[in-house]
């Protein structure tokens, strides 16, 4: 455990400075190796046959013609891998390939391995599948209200639930109804957050290799190699000691590669059947259908406040449209409520969330898992409340600030909290005081805040082992090798362990080698999700490095006949603190230590606190060792004639605890704000209905038609780092990869209101939708700039 005193900045030599990434030049020269760049001798190519029906029984599958085609080496169907799996151990409801039922257009039913891709595609055409079509559920309300007259999508999870329900969570803290009764103002709102998908630029890809000795190796573009390892072993019935998962560099993930997918099981099984390596690369269309992205949320909020602008009570009812499988849905259902209770003090809070299945690709975790949708609704609610009581929305948020070293109403432990500094930063940088309600009609500015977890205290499968481990080894050349099982998906975790090794052991950064992403030789890290990596991996790396540092200090101290604590390691040398003229190259220091202690290596690990959560069912979900905080201000121009919204700029202030490398932190903040902007204005993972093609067919499964922003679409972004120096984070660091996405969307919504006086409560704010809202307001005579609040903000105030 890192002690607070270890987080002082004055001690740090490298940490906090702009630094390059360990693989940065590989990526800019084309040398970086991703899964599809790998070719193995004798490799076959696989393809997956997918369901054309949103809901159907599989009556029969005849693979004989496909198997007879020259060049085809194996065909596999669901019955060959009939073990149910699911990323959440309590909800295993899918199979690598469907066994008896397909549940969305695109569900996998069979896979082939052939000498080349062309032959594999031809073979798919020869597989005869007989389906008995079933009525499909496309709408979550219809799925929820189903009476069993047509088959549910799954078997009932619980007595009394219909088979379309994945999970129901209802939690209440404090006196919610009394709080609403006592409130001077109550705002009721109904919101809809459209589903969106991750769209990493790298499509999913996997390669299987089965050796004669029973060893199975799978290369995969996954962000959870450890969970993949476990599920491959279980489903393919291979001893986990004989399964190896190698994770090449991953070309983006954003939550879209955080559970096992059909292709990973298929390459494993096909390799076992053929004795040949097998590769499957998704087409872009398959990436859209594999999905696991942001759930569509239908949300209702009632929020009360006093005339002084203090929240009294929050009541939420949410329906999550989950798609065909559970995925992370159990957690999503909890997160839809659990992560809302900061940065504002809520005396009372209730949420009632239900996730239902529909016959669409499964939803799962996307950057800001489960909490981006309610944050949109709630920050708009706050804006509405602030207006009702006549208080500037920044001032309103300040008055409700929850503070640091406190507990939320749902008993989450909050330690460091830099939210007020975040608000002050964006307020100052954006020129808020001169703009809010003061710009001409059509121009607006809006604020929103948020919080997010830095990892979860409880792992996905219950166990007492560390959440992250690192091994370090020092050699006689002065080099440090770090073995890290963390998932480099572009966020820079391989670099973080290198920075820490260099910081602690005094070697130049380019003397650190990071050996990564291979379950055969790297310690377990649970994966790149829930913003856990910097916090947990960083602490594990510090633990390992400091064990080695002590050995080196001791050996040098013995040679110099001084105290070990007086030996400093920095800048490629060992120094004697009282007289830094006394020094020697770090390589010689390492050699002294190796001579004294033998071959030098150490392991380090980190585990989360397990004693800080609410004592109620679900109280562990949302419990994190630390919380990040964010505030955004967005400025927009609204063209009321076309409905086009031009986001001029987003100011992003984020409390990341400490920026270990500000370049990487800014990159996460900018990328997050961009992605939130995209969800606000452009992106929607939607499906055709019977009137517009085949029901359940993806509306736009391409990177042109699913509109992700180009450089010309993306607004100017300004990142403002806030450092609260967390007591338990590595050097005080917290997360930066997901939190900064949240406020983009409500900040834009609130800015639109400031511009034209219209509340956009349904996403995305696309031109037709905005234009229709403008026309309605014009007709009602309400199309006008809203009035300024009586109580302005005190600029930069930090009470």
């Amino acid at each position, binding site marked *: 455990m890192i002690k607070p005193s270890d987080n002082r900045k004055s001690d740090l030599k490298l940490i906090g400075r702009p630094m390059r990434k360990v693989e940065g030049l590989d990526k800019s020269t084309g040398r970086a190796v991703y899964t599809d760049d790998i070719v193995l001798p004798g490799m076959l190519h696989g393809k997956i046959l997918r369901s054309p029906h949103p809901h159907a029984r599989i009556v029969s599958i005849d693979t004989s013609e496909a198997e007879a085609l020259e060049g085809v080496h194996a065909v596999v169907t669901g019955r060959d891998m009939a073990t149910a799996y699911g990323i959440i151990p309590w909800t295993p409801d899918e199979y690598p390939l469907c066994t008896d039922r397909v549940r969305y257009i695109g569900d996998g039913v069979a896979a082939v391995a052939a000498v080349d891709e062309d032959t594999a595609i031809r073979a798919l055409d020869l597989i005869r599948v007989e389906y008995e079509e079933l009525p499909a559920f496309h709408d979550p309300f219809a799925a929820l209200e189903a009476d069993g007259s047509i088959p549910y999508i799954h078997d009932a999870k619980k007595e009394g639930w219909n088979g379309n329900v994945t999970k129901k969570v209802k939690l209440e803290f404090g006196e919610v109804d009394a709080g609403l009764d006592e409130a001077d103002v109550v705002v009721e709102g109904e919101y809809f957050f459209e589903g969106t998908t991750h769209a990493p630029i790298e499509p999913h890809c996997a390669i299987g290799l089965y050796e004669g000795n029973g060893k199975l190796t799978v290369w995969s573009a996954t962000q959870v190699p450890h969970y993949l390892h476990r599920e491959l072993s279980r489903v393919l019935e291979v001893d986990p000691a004989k399964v190896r998962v190698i994770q090449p560099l991953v070309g983006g993930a954003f939550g879209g590669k955080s559970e096992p997918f059909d292709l990973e099981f298929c390459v494993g099984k096909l390799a076992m059947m053929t004795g040949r390596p097998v590769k499957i690369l998704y087409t872009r269309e398959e990436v859209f259908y594999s999905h696991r992205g942001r759930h569509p949320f239908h949300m209702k909020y009632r929020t009360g406040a006093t005339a002084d602008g203090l929240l009294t009570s929050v009541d939420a009812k949410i329906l999550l449209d989950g798609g065909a499988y559970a995925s992370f849905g159990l957690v999503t259902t909890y997160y839809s409520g659990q992560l809302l209770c900061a940065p504002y003090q809520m005396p009372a809070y209730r949420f009632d969330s239900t996730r239902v299945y529909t016959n669409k690709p499964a939803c799962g975790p996307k950057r800001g898992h489960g909490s981006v949708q309610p944050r949109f609704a709630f920050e708009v609610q706050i804006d509405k409340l602030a207006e009702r009581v006549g208080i500037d929305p920044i001032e309103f948020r300040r008055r409700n600030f929850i503070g640091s070293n406190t507990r939320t109403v749902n008993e989450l432990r909050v330690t460091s909290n830099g939210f007020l500094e975040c608000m002050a930063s964006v307020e100052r940088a954006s020129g808020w005081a001169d703009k809010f309600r003061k710009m001409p009609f059509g121009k607006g500015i809006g604020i929103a805040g948020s919080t997010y977890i830095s990892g979860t205290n409880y792992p996905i499968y219950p166990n007492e082992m560390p959440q992250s481990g690192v091994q370090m080894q020092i050699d006689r050349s002065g080099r440090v090798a770090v073995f890290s099982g963390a998932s480099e998906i572009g966020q820079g975790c391989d670099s973080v362990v290198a920075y820490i090794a260099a910081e602690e052991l005094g070697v130049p950064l380019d003397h650190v080698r990071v050996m990564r992403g291979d379950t055969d030789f790297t310690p377990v890290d649970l994966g790149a999700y829930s913003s856990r990596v910097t916090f947990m991996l960083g602490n594990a790396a510090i633990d390992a490095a400091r064990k080695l540092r002590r050995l080196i200090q001791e050996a040098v101290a013995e040679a110099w006949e001084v105290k070990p604590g007086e030996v400093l390691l920095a800048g490629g040398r060992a120094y004697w603190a009282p007289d830094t003229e006394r020094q020697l190259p770090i390589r010689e220091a390492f050699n002294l230590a190796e001579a004294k202690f033998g071959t030098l290596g150490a392991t380090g690990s980190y585990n989360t606190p397990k004693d800080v959560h609410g004592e109620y069912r679900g109280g562990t979900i949302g419990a994190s060792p630390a919380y990040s905080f964010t505030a955004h201000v967005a400025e927009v121009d609204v063209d009321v004639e076309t409905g086009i919204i031009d986001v001029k700029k987003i100011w992003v202030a984020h409390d990341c605890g400490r920026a270990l490398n500000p370049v990487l932190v800014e990159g996460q903040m900018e990328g*997050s704000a961009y992605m939130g902007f995209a969800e606000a204005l452009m992106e929607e993972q939607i499906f055709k209905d019977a009137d517009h093609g085949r029901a359940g067919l993806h509306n736009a499964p391409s990177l042109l038609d699913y509109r992700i922003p180009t450089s010309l679409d993306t607004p100017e972004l300004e990142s403002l780092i806030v450092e609260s120096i967390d007591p338990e984070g590595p050097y005080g660091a917290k997360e930066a990869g997901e939190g900064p996405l949240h406020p983009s969307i409500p900040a834009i919504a609130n800015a639109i209101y400031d511009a034209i006086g219209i509340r956009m409560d349904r996403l995305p704010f696309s031109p037709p939708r905005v234009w229709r809202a403008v026309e309605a307001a014009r007709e009602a005579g309400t199309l006008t700039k809203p009035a300024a609040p009586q109580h302005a903000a005190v600029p930069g105030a930090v009470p």
Partner: protein
Amino acid sequence: MSTGRAGWEEGYTPTRPGIRRPAPSNGRTSAERLVLRESGRLGHLVPMEATKDIVRLRVNGDRHEVGVPTHYTLLETLRYALGLTGSKQGCDKGDCGACTVLVDGAPTLSCITPVWEAAGAEIRTVEGLATAEGPHPLQDAFDLKGAAQCGFCTPGILCSAAALLDWNRAPTREEIREALSGNLCRCTGYAKIYDAVEVAAARLRGEEPNDSTGGSEP
């Protein structure tokens, strides 16, 4: 509900300036394989019988003769026949720009360019930007400024940016945005990419931008 097209108007045709799109060709390309058919072949049509033929290419200054299926694209040829895996396939139909290479100096979508159309041209890929002296200033600047997060779009963006800097050593930020508008990046929000292009442009003009992010500095 989440069906129907609530987004952009029907018939809206976005344009992507910057990258050259080849004219429609009789040769089969990956793009044509992307149809979901009633028979359930999601993501691919059944290909024709693939026969191979020899194609002559000049890539990064080297001459190659290589046998590829007749429907191969330039990207497939580079990646799977020549082992030049730096150029990436992100969308398989010319939408994302990750496959961008330079054909006679012009940024070109290699994933929808039938390989035959590139025969005889001077092709340059991300692997050909560096010289014996070291990485191209753009490559170093991308590393320096954190412009490559996952790195998958990076090779294509570098090719588009290299073409820009070939004719304009002092591009404005607006000109950079325009030149890169055919290359989708999902990680960075583009901000660090603009910074990197500006640093590289300054270096190519002979100015050394002031920056302390050293690789070997302790």
